[in-house]
């Protein structure tokens, strides 16, 4: 019985204390008035000094949104959200857009340092050359800093906050905004279209291989604030870019809403690699608080031989509703989705992907690893479809689920739709618990139960971890161990 | 019997064979040796008519027949047999059913009557016994769950049963232990005949200790670069393929 008590104590001890990003930054903010109306939208647009066309675009989305109902098909449960009880815009009070690093509020720089995100352009550290990563930091509703801009500009790469892109590159924004995720797409994407505040913009010109990893770091700080960022990445013909996204939020008792939209466009022979490590606050051990992560991410392989690859490590959020997808329009284009989704406590994950094969000889690959612990529910939901004209379409899907403990659930809901004979779709899925034999073997060699579990889980997700850029992979591995703490007795 | 003239072949736009010339006479055992990637397996597939290979030039004749104009099954009926390097697994089709279908299809194509079941069974049992293939194995689906050695033995069994004129053996020695190699070689040797030709493709000399070739061709970068007697194989065993890779460059 002593062992049982020990387990109970341990489980009690972990909960939110494992979430090391839960601090609040004390900084003065200015916010839009609470609630959502045309006035809110006008306020946001005016704050950003947007052109008329963009304001109209937002208002159109808002008019559409009020006629829509929140989707209910996902396996997630939460109390009804009062959309009038939220703030839709919050910015550190210091005025407008991004500036040089020296001018950024030191409080903010400290926040990012604490989060392990260097907002300094350090190239050589103690004589060791580190791989360089350009960072765009988004704090609540605005981008506060973007690093390495000058160097990127030399290569012709545009990497800036979304607001800046609207000012400096309106023709590109106007051409591509909403061309992958139309403002009418779904409830959350439409809401985002009306009130999105900031986000990142990337354009890589023809034939250019972006000289460094690009990264955006999202942080929700303010109370009762929704975060609605918008990311738009365009890889022109023959271009290549690798983009990383990280997210955290303070521990708060209320639920915070995050409804982002990410659009990727890859033209002929271009490649976009998009990696996410999502570690929004998951809520406490009783399921109180945490981020509602309702995100629409979609890539369009618009050109021949284009390639879009999504990699995600999802450990945070109270609720995750997210299906990074690929429209395989260009002939011989390719889509990939690599996912690790870990849920513990009372977390609910409903995530997966869509691979829509429209062009000839398109191919896609899905590797999904779901791990459910505690009292969480973890669902993979995926769609693979081949249009009648998509002859030669190929998909391979592998989705495996691991259950740790008998209070959680792991679910697999694939839709596999072939509309022509020259399609080869293969799908396999397994659900099991950690093998007793493997555990025993590790324990016998002296590992603790938690170490052994982390080790085995890391092996289980290895195929996906390998897809992450090096620095992220190490971080992700640690994150996996942290999120599973207390899941074994 | 086999006459390959100036044959060029590519796959997915990648050229593999580049103006290859080769003649194999009736009654002859010709060995083709060469480094990996020299195009040996491609040659065997093109002779058998595998669809994804694109012949960009040249001709392949089996006596009076232009093989390149024939479908794979028609070539088989004319007496072309390929012992695959990787025999294909066909779940659900019993080996026995498959053998009977193949044998009778070839007989029909040649205007002969189907073999009666007792005659067929006798022929299969005889071939199985000489190749030490357990008759129970023939009830199982084609190549499914067979070991590497079993697959190769069943390939030779098919050859013995179908009595082809031109036997192409593609790396038949790969994956065989010494006993299996001996059994397979004996099976091949038993079929040597004045009216039959063999094209033995191999990377290593050791198969040729068991199946003595009359002629040895060395292949590199899609062509035959040297032809000689059995002593050439021994020389290759000693010196490797380095000289030939450079010679063709």
């Amino acid at each position, binding site marked *: 019985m002593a062992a049982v008590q020990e387990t109970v104590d341990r489980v009690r001890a972990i909960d939110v204390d494992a979430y090391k990003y839960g601090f609040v930054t004390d900084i003065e903010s200015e916010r839009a008035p609470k609630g959502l109306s045309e006035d809110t939208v006008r306020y946001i647009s005016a704050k950003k000094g947007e052109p008329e066309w963009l304001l109209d675009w937002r208002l159109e989305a808002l008019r559409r949104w009020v006629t829509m109902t929140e989707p209910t098909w996902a396996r997630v449960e939460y109390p009804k959200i009062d959309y009038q009880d939220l703030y839709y815009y919050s910015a550190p009070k210091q005025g407008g857009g991004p500036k040089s690093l020296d001018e950024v509020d030191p409080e903010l720089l400290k926040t990012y340092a604490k989060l392990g995100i260097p907002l300094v352009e350090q190239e050589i550290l103690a004589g060791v050359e580190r791989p360089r990563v350009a960072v765009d930091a988004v704090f609540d509703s605005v981008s506060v800093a973007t690093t390495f801009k000058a160097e990127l500009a030399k290569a012709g790469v545009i990497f800036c906050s979304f607001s800046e892109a609207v000012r400096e590159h309106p023709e590109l924004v106007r051409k591509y905004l909403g061309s992958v995720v139309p403002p009418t797409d779904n409830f959350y994407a439409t809401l985002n279209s009306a009130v999105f505040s900031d986000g990142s913009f990337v354009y890589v010109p023809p034939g250019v291989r972006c000289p460094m990893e690009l990264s955006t770091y999202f942080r929700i700080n303010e109370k009762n604030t929704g975060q609605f960022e918008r990311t738009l990445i365009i890889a022109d013909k023959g271009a290549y870019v690798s983009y990383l996204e990280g997210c955290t939020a303070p521990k708060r008792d209320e639920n915070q809403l995050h409804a982002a939209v990410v659009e990727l466009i890859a033209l002929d022979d271009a490649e976009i690699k998009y990696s996410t490590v999502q570690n929004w606050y998951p809520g406490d051990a009783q399921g109180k608080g945490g981020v509602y992560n309702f995100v629409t991410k979609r890539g369009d392989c618009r050109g021949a031989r284009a390639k879009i690859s999504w990699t995600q490590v999802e450990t945070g959020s109270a609720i995750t509703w997210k299906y990074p997808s690929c429209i395989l329009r260009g002939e011989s284009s390719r889509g990939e989705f690599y996912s690790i989704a870990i849920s513990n406590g009372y977390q609910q994950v409903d995530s997966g992907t869509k691979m829509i094969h429209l062009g000839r000889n398109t191919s896609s690959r899905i590797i999904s690893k779901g791990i459910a612990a505690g009292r969480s529910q973890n669902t993979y939901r995926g769609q693979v479809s081949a249009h009648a004209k998509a002859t030669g379409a190929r998909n391979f899907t592998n989705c495996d689920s691991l259950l740790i403990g008998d209070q959680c659930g792991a679910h697999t809901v694939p839709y596999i739709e072939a509309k022509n004979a020259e399609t080869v779709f*293969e799908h396999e899925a397994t659900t099991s618990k950690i093998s007793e034999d493997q555990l025993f073997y590790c324990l016998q060699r002296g590992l603790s139960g938690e170490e052994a579990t982390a080790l085995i889980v890391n092996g289980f997700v290895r195929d996906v971890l390998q897809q992450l850029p090096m620095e992220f992979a190490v971080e992700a591995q640690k994150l996996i161990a942290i999120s599973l703490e207390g899941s074994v007795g | 019997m086999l006459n390959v003239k100036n044959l060029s072949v590519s796959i997915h736009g990648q050229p593999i064979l580049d103006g290859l010339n080769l003649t194999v006479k009736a009654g002859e055992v010709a060995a083709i040796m060469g480094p990996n990637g020299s195009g040996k397996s491609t040659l065997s597939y093109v002779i058998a008519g595998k669809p994804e290979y694109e012949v960009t030039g040249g001709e392949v004749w089996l006596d009076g027949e232009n093989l390149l104009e024939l479908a794979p099954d028609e070539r*088989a009926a004319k007496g072309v047999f390929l012992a695959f390097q990787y025999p294909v697994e066909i779940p659900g089709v019993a080996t026995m059913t498959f053998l009977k279908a193949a044998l009778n299809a070839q007989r029909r194509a040649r205007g002969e009557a189907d073999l009666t079941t007792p005659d067929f069974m006798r022929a299969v049992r005889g071939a199985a016994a000489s190749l030490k293939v357990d008759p129970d194995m023939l009830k199982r689906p084609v190549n499914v769950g067979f070991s590497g050695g079993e697959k190769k033995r069943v390939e030779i069994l098919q050859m013995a049963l179908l009595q082809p004129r031109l036997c192409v053996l593609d790396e038949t020695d790969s994956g065989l232990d010494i006993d299996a190699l001996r059994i397979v070689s004996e099976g091949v040797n038993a079929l040597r005949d004045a009216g039959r030709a063999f094209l033995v493709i191999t990377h290593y000399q050791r198969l040729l200790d068991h199946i003595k070739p009359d002629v040895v061709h060395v292949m590199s970068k899609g062509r035959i670069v040297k032809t000689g007697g059995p002593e050439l194989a021994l020389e290759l065993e000693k010196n490797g393929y380095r000289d030939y890779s450079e010679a063709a460059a």
Partner: protein
Amino acid sequence: MSVHSLNVKTGAEAALAQQFAALSPSEPRRAAFAAFERLGLPTRRDEAWHYTDLRARLTEVAALAPAPDAARLEAARAALDVLPRLGGMRLVLVDGRWAPVLCDAPPSGLTVVPTPDAPEPDEAVVALNIAFAEGALRIGLPPGESSVEIVHLDGPGAIFSRLEVFVPARARATVVERFEGATGETQRNAVTILGLGESARCDWTTLIADDAALHLETRRARLAGEAALNDFALISGGALVRRQLDVGHQAASAKIALSGLSLLDGTRHADTTLTLRHAAPLGQSREYFRHIVADAASGVYQGKVIVSPGAQKTDGAMKSQALLLSPTAQMNNKPELEIFADDVVCGHGATVGALDPQQIFYLLSRGIPQREAEAMLLEAFGAEAIERVADETVADALRERLRAWLKGRAA
């Protein structure tokens, strides 16, 4: 979710209401029809009907088939005389009604009685069945071994039948259920409620070889501890076929095997949707379905395996494989797992594709012509599903159907 928020009846729904109004049914049947009116015909917005929009497809409702008269029964007898037997005692329903005069005398211990009992009208197709069927037939199988052949001999019109079958503890039953006689004017709605007692075993094989315009078949089976059900269905006919199975076990150590083969050509559409409920520990389930889809036909497979909390040591495996033979053939697969217990091993696989070119080439290289090679591979593909049928006589008959279908296609 209010699917029919506009509450506008389709022509078919209105026609059904008219037909029902002309009857003088019992109270439970009235309740069932009321339930149907609330539910409406299922649409693709109902997750279980995602790929078969019955509301859109059912444009005309056939008139209710009348109870068979003497002439109809005579014609049925003639048809039965030339129908080779595939099982023991023959039990016959003509146009959905029990026809005792055409049945074999039941062996001792086997009982057949009409019953007004009905399940809950919780689903539209079942609700329609309860509303329109003139009661159900209760079949009690004897202890020990038994073999029954159930023949549905159906003519034109809307036909509703419902069977309740019980296999007592430790009994071993073989059932062959055949749907025969239907034509393009037949709309069929058949429901089977099957119960297996402790350690009972039932092998149930269904043959759908006739050509109904609409074939709706619902099977609900509940197994007691250590019982075993081996269910197989061959679908080789019918313009619009929907088989919906709901199978589960409430006590430990049940074994469930559900399998089938669909042979689809022309513009046929066949939908197999099943839910498998592991509600107790140590259950084993195997789903194994194969589909050959030619021409402009379309196949659907939706399989959901639910492992309830506490159903530890569940061992589940599901596989659905389809071969598409034409550029316009379609296949939709949705193999689903819903798992709430941790000590389980569950997996599923689904493949869709054309015949393997490597295999074709291997056969060609041995001298077997293209068409013959294809037929050989297709027959092997189908035969691997038929292997799940334990009874050799029945399996032979199924293989014969498969060969005939392949031959019909080649011709």
